[in-house]
């Protein structure tokens, strides 16, 4: 495949008025969602998904991908101006970004954040092309056994990396897998957990689960207390970093890009972890690390670059293997399946126009976001002045509209309502929602590939261990389990000594 020719064809597809419009809408919504605490990109994609059902898959996915990385641009605004992360991946930007704002350098922080995000987004997308294409070609060798083992390994990575408590992350994943068994099974078409409710025949919709857990659940947590946000004022003319600031940040941006892309490509790691790792690296690499936490520009440039390139990295397993690396990419995977597209190596063969248009749109989207986020950031920052008491009813309403418009039925609103309560208590009990959503999307594929692999091997489980790729993936999963278990046992043994001190 000629990569350059395919990419050019992708640009031809994207550079149409409607597709550009969809990219712009996605960037706009993504930025707003990133700025406003209470709604993440995953829930936003799920909410807007039903509204795109009348469209072709290409513009719909362009919009959704734009929301995904647009949120990373927007999240820094709230972190810098309010010291509240607008989005999970912008937590670490609060450390130095807000300090810079207090020093009157808020504009510089916002500017370098946008520039770093842009550079990382472009380089990350280039990385996506050069990793995704050969990986997709390699994964053509995958059969059902390999896919089963890959999903097992991917889910274990998400569980072990994703949350504070491995037990709770595992519980979340198991409940997600259990939800995925609702409906007709792949083997005999038996109706599992349907209880004569016709809507359950097709299973539990991941869209309503995501809207409930991440949308309603988040809003309920935010609405517990009357939220008040005090912002630091930023003048438009102060947005441009000086040449000195850019030179001081250049290595942080490049290091953040590489770290973010590699971490983002790991299922479960995601942009939040990438941004923390980048911050640690920048602090370690600095000659005077005591500046960090007090307004070090590298403390903003590195993590903001990392969280953007992590988005490109996360698209690698999604497009090449069909394995989502995060809640947001799990929703995108579900969306692709609703459109009749199956992410994985065959996507590059059966729908190359779609894939290359999507990749080309990531270049265009980053340009749009840079244009939006530099001059328009004072306007976006004004949205932080909107009292939250008017915002959260709007968010709840949008969730209700999104759920209702799935099938034009109140049933979906009720499902979302139930999972809104579940999502609220999950947040309160520190149970991560990502493993649940990912398991819900991957669970049916896991069962299907298990059944197919055993059917092809006439019932022999050794097929998973005798096929080299499958065996390697299961061995990696086994090593992960052993390593995490050792770590847990060691930390339990060292705990009484720490408590005695």
């Amino acid at each position, binding site marked *: 495949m000629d990569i350059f020719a395919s990419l050019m064809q992708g640009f031809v597809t994207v550079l149409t008025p409607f597709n550009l419009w969809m990219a712009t809408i996605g960037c706009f919504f993504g930025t707003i969602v990133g700025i406003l605490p209470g709604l993440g990109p995953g829930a936003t994609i799920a909410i807007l998904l039903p*509204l795109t059902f009348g469209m072709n898959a290409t513009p719909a996915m362009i919009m959704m991908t734009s929301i995904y990385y647009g949120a990373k641009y927007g999240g820094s605004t709230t972190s810098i101006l309010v010291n509240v992360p607008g989005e999970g991946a912008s937590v670490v930007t609060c450390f130095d970004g807000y300090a810079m704002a207090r020093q009157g350098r808020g504009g510089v922080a916002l500017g370098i954040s946008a520039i770093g995000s842009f550079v990382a987004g472009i380089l990350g997308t280039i990385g996506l092309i050069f990793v995704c294409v050969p990986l997709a070609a390699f994964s053509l060798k995958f059969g059902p056994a390999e896919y089963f083992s890959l999903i097992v390994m991917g889910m274990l990575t998400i569980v072990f990396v994703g949350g504070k408590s491995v*037990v709770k992350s595992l519980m979340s994943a198991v409940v997600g897998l*259990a939800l995925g068994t609702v409906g007709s099974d792949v083997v005999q078409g038996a109706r*599992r957990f349907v209880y004569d409710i016709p809507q359950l025949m097709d299973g539990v919709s991941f869209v309503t689960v995501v809207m409930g857990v991440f949308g309603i659940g988040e809003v309920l947590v935010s609405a517990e207390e009357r939220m008040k946000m005090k912002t630091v004022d930023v003048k438009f003319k102060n947005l441009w970093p000086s040449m000195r600031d850019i030179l001081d940040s250049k290595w942080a941006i490049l290091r953040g890009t590489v770290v973010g892309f590699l971490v983002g490509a790991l299922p479960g790691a995601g942009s939040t972890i990438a941004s923390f790792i980048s911050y640690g690296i920048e602090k370690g690499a600095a000659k005077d690390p005591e500046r960090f936490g007090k307004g070090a520009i590298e403390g903003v440039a590195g993590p903001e670059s990392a969280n953007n390139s992590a988005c490109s990295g996360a698209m690698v397993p999604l497009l090449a293997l069909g394995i989502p690396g995060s809640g947001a990419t799990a929703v995108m995977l579900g969306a692709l399946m609703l459109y009749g597209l199956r992410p994985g190596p065959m996507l590059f063969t059966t729908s190359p126009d779609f894939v290359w248009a999507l990749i080309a749109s990531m270049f265009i989207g980053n340009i749009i976001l840079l244009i939006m986020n530099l001059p328009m950031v004072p306007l976006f920052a004004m949205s932080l002045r909107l009292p939250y008491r008017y915002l959260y009813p709007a968010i709840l309403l949008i969730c209700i509209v999104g759920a209702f*418009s799935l099938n034009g039925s*109140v049933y979906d609103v009720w499902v979302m309502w139930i999972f809104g309560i579940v999502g609220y208590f999950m947040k309160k009990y520190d149970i991560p929602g990502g493993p649940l959503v990912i398991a819900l999307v991957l669970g049916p594929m896991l069962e299907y590939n*298990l059944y197919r*692999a*055993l059917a092809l091997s006439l019932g022999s489980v050794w097929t998973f261990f005798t096929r080299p790729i499958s065996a390697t993936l299961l061995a990696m999963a086994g090593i992960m389990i052993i390593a995490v278990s050792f770590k847990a046992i060691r930390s339990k043994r060292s705990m009484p000594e720490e408590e005695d001190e």
Partner: protein
Amino acid sequence: MKKGDRVLSIICMGLSLWLIIESLQFDYLSEFGPGPGFEPFWLGILLAILSIALFIDTVRRRSDKEGAKSCLPGWKALGRVGLIMLIMAGFALSLNTLGFFVTVFLFVSLILFTLEEVGILKSMFYGIMFSASVFLIFSYGMEINFPKGFFGI
């Protein structure tokens, strides 16, 4: 958090027992591989093991430090959350009877008036604004059909 984890482990244990019992209704194996009862059965077992592990962890854990926060907020905050969910449930129940736009108006007005202590007239004003916005953006702009209900709107 210790008490909360204990409650969580008991709930998940109940869920796991339900999964196991329900899965016994289906075939465990099929001709070559797992049957429809296979996956839910083992998920139930796994969830039971995890619930026991979490429960044992709460028993072995030392008592929460004095002043440690409970995972749930105070009654006032829980009341706010409960009221929001109640109003949302009311929305879903009255959607087909009253129609979408009337329900949106009532939903927004109620939330602002009861929870956010916005005056009644102001709440109704915002209710109308939100209802009009939903109509313009979703019904007119995106041509989504919403139920019309008793009032025909």
